[in-house]
Structure formats: C-alpha cells, structure tokens
C-alpha cells in the first residue's frame, strides 16, 4: 500500500492495474557513484489483475533539478501492444519545458527492449543506459493487516509473496541534471483515444513521490484528486488537510506546518552524489514505513515489525524473481 490500489482506474468498472503505481525507487548504483538506478513498479497483485504493461500509456519518471516542483528532465517509457506474450519498451529522455508537459516526444535512449513475462532477465543496453522491464517480486514490505487495525502491528508482511511489473533504468548521473540534489516523482498517463498530437491525448492516472503519502493522508475521493494534482499545486490544495491529520497525532500547529512542508509537494528528494538511503532517494531495503510511521505519529508508533525481503538481487535489475 505504498501506493498500491489507489488509482482511479482501479474503481470498478474501469479496473486498470497496468498503470497503477505501486512504488518507485532512486538510489546510487552500488559500486558506481557515477550512475543511478531508477525503478518504477506498477500492477499490484500481478498477474491477478493484469499481466502486461499498457500499450498506449506513458510511464514517466520526472526529475526536478532546481527545487521548483516542476520537472526539467523526464524519462518516458512506452510499450508496444502485447502480441501473444511479446511486448517491447521504448524509453525516451526529454529535457527543458517539454519535460514538464505531456507527450511522447524525447530522445530515444532505449528501443525495442523486450518485456520479461517470466523469471528470465533480458537486459537492454544502449550507450550509458541499461533497462529492464518485466514480471518481478514486489519489493515492498508492510504489515497491511496491522495498518487496517489502526497501526496495531503484528509483523505479518502482506507483500512477502506478491508480484509487480517492474521498469528498471540505469542512468549516468549527468542525465539527471548538473545539480546532484534533485527531486523525483513518477506518474502514469493513459491515452484518451484522441491521439491528434496535442496535450489532450493523455490524462494523468496515478502519481507518487514518497511512499504511502496519498494512502495515509488523503480521504476518499481526495486520493483521486491527489493522483492528478501537479506537485507545484499540492501545498495549496492539500496542506491544510495534511496539517489536520498531523495534529490528530498530537503535533502542535507549528510542527504540523513544518512537517507538512516536508511532505508536500510529494517528491522524493535525492542527492545522487550520496549513497545514503531514505530520505535521500529510496533503496529497495530502506524501511520507509518505519521512518514515516515515527514521523507521522509523532513517535507514538515506530515500527510495523516487518523488515526487508531477502530476494533482492545484488546486481541489475536488483528486483527479485517473481513468485510463481
């Protein structure tokens, strides 16, 4: 539930798990401080709800290089139709004003990368870039039943046997911009069917910065609004609601305001010159829930008693083999 199952498309009857973001990660490549690993996972409970990537959708990793909550760099991943188990990905890098907008333009950095629908690992390399897409073990770990009980955790990891569809991109740090302190978020966009070449060809379906922010802070239909709100507008639209939630956990006005300004806009801050983990980027093993629990509950709850999985790989694509 980092961001699992909160997309509007999951509402019946338009279930669309293929573009439901579950998590994203950003960390310095182990053993190579000049490169970064960016991971975007979708499709919770895969393959129960969906068994491929969505052709026609855009899976996008946004990079803000100057702390204005607007992207100056974006990586756009698109997929061909799934033809009897054959599907390929194209990855584009776009910079400047176009990176903040909606569209499929950009410089192709990976082309015809095959999707892996089983435990095999086919990696596509082009220049300094490396890419994997396919069916993997869900790396997220959390006691979901304890959360449903209102933070009364028992250490039962709901995600220990779950799968997702992963996109893993290795990039040289310079591709994230000159300033090593960047902000990263991910989003998915669905084709409207219009396809006349303008910005209306797509609408934003899901979005995620830090884990579990939308899940924990937003009520009901606010979750849907949050998923389609650009980061630069988040404080204005959701700041008061976040402060109210924080005050319900015992924070005074000043502290609730200060923490809200950390949490919003919902962007994962990442210094690519550092190998440290969350809140600097996010590694697969980072216990982000424990860190956020302590922060959000004002220290009343500090752990869900669940730790990282043991199936992460030491090398690219880092995400473990799927459970079959």
């Amino acid at each position, binding site marked *: *539930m980092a961001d699992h*199952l909160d997309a509007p498309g*999951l*509402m*019946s009857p338009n*279930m669309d798990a293929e573009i439901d973001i579950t998590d994203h990660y950003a960390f310095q490549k182990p053993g190579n401080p000049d490169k970064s690993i960016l991971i975007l996972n979708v499709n919770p*409970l895969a393959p*129960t*709800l969906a068994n491929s990537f969505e052709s026609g959708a855009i899976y996008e990793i946004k990079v803000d290089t100057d702390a204005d909550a607007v992207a100056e760099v974006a990586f756009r991943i698109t997929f061909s139709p799934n033809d009897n188990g054959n599907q390929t990905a194209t990855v584009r890098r776009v910079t400047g004003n176009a990176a903040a907008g909606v569209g499929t333009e950009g410089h192709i950095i990976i082309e015809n990368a095959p999707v892996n629908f089983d435990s095999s690992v086919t990696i596509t390399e082009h220049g300094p870039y490396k890419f994997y897409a396919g069916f993997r073990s869900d790396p997220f770990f959390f006691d*979901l*039943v304890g*959360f*449903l*009980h*209102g*933070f*009364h955790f028992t250490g*039962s990891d*709901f995600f220990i046997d779950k799968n997702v569809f992963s996109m893993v991109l290795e990039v040289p740090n310079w591709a994230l911009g000159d300033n090593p302190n960047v902000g990263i978020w991910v989003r998915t966009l669905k084709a409207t069917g219009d396809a006349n070449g303008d910005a209306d060809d797509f609408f934003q379906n899901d979005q995620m910065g830090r884990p579990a922010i939308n*899940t*924990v*802070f*937003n*009520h*009901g*239909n606010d*979750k*849907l609004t949050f998923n389609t709100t650009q980061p630069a507008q988040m404080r204005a639209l959701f700041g008061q609601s976040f402060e109210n*939630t924080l005050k*319900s956990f015992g924070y005074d006005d000043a502290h609730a305001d200060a923490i809200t300004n950390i949490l919003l806009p919902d962007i994962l801050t990442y210094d690519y010159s550092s190998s440290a983990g969350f809140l600097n980027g996010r590694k697969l093993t980072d216990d982000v829930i424990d860190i956020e629990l302590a922060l959000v509950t004002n220290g009343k709850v500090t752990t869900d008693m669940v730790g990282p999985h043991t199936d992460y790989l030491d090398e690219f694509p880092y995400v473990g083999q799927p459970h079959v």
Partner: protein
Amino acid sequence: MKKLNRRKFLQVAGASSAVAAGVMVPSTGLLERYAAKDGAMTFRAVAGMPAKPLPNYASYVIEGHVNLATSSGVITKTVFAGSPETMSTIALPGMSRIGRISSVQDQGGSLLITGVVDDRSQLKRGESSTFTVLVDRLNGVAQAEFFGKLVSLNLV
C-alpha cells in the same frame, strides 16, 4: 448509533458458543423481526479500514444469507480495496473467509450468528475456525472480529 462493547460482545458470543453444539430454534419473535415469510434473511455490513480519523484504505464487508427457520446459511467476509465510498471489486488476497452458519440466537433483539470456516486452508496460522457476528438491525450495526480485534460495521 448504539455501541456494543467488546466485553458484552464476547459474553454473548461465548454464551452462543456454549450452546452452539445443540439444535438452536429461533423464537417466533426473531422470525417476525428479521425474516421474510420463508425464514430467509440477508444482510450486508461494511466498515472502512482503518477506522477514522485515519483515511480508509480498504473496506471490510460481511454478507450473510441466513435461514432463521433452520439456523443455517452462509457468511462471507471480504476485504475490498478502497474506502466504503470508493470501494473497488478487488478483494485483498488472504483476507476472505467463507463460513457455514451453525447457530442463530436472539440476543435482546439482536441476532447473534455463530459459524465455522470448514475450509481451514483459508485460515492463517493460529486463527480460529469459528466466528461470531452480531447483527443489530434496530441500530443499523453489526459487530464481528477482524483478525482478533472487534470491529463495528454499518448495515447497508
């Protein structure tokens, strides 16, 4: 909304369990209050999880198809993704239970339903195969356990 505390719930649930092995014959009043002419009664109860003030992430749904004349029927418990207002049709895996009703009692105007999950493969380690659901139509609520903790649900 009338609330039933955990102690009272466990008292009536315990009393029910003690007599569940015998044949339970509902009173005429119970049939009149709850059932159609054929003795059949259905209900659906929903609770947002986690409870407010936390935002609901999922919905705990209990549905009952009860034959009051024979004290039999089926209870299903399911956790769907989404709050009650935005509930999806996605059942969270490992959290659904299907149980056979073994007794039905009138408890001060409420309906106390006891049952058993015959397919133990549904259960987590240490989880009891028996369950109890208290249905209070007058106040529009139901009470049941959710993985060891008492939850109040709204009848819908």
